[in-house]
């Protein structure tokens, strides 16, 4: 079973050493965002589904750049392509010139 977690405390996400985490600097009790803000909640879920597909190795904590209550969220139209914010955040950890994660992971079961 594949897992993707949201985290609101970055250090806890790193220490948990889970397969895949997305980090949001948002208040407790608001992992999906603001009440009634459906585009925002769907954007977070889109990023979680993208992480399930695109994370290249275990232990990545991808910080999402969304500022609390200062973003406008467009409707998610294409669910099979990662959104630009997520793609940029993931590439900053895994792309050319990024710092490689030295931790090894098990081969797929």
């Amino acid at each position: 079973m594949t897992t993707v977690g949201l985290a609101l405390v970055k250090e806890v996400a790193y220490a948990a050493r889970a397969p895949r985490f997305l980090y949001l600097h948002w208040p407790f009790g608001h992992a999906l965002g603001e009440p009634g803000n459906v585009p925002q909640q769907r954007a977070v879920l889109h990023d979680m589904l993208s992480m399930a597909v695109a994370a290249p190795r275990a232990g990545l904590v991808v910080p999402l750049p969304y500022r609390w209550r200062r973003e406008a969220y467009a409707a998610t139209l294409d669910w099979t392509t990662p959104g630009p914010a997520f793609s940029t955040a993931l590439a900053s950890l895994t792309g050319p010139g990024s710092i490689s994660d030295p931790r090894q992971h098990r081969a797929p079961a």
Partner: protein
Amino acid sequence: MSGSATLFGVIPVGSAFGRFVSRLIALPQLRRLTTGDIPWTPLRKPIADCTVALISTGGVHLRGDHPFHLNGDSTYRVIPGSARREDLAISHQAYDKTDALRDINLVFPIERLRELEAERVIGRLSDVHYGFGLMGSAQKLMPAIKEVARRLGRSGVDLALLVPA
């Protein structure tokens, strides 16, 4: 239910202070418990074919179920995929629940996932989801976590989404 949040009934939890307390309590325990390799199970099928389950640590449970002990609870609650927002309650005192009580999707996005199932973005919403409450001891939580993982594995869930308080 009051929206004011306290940890263990006494410590007021603001945003920055809550993060500090969270780090203080969680980090030493996690560093002890998470030795060895990081597990890794790649997704083996397209999202549109996956059965998806939610695991929330926001204290969510069925209104008719036993509430979580507010000062620490090492058990879990089963939440059926058919649960409506009026069927759900929150027993947790370490975060401000005001907004989550207005919109349960903030800590348990069941309605959003139901929409994604209807839109065929995901294959299927799992029949069963899981809720945890506040627990200061990660070690004491491990038996329940392992049981939930076994249950999810047996039920054919492909992807579990973890949502924190």
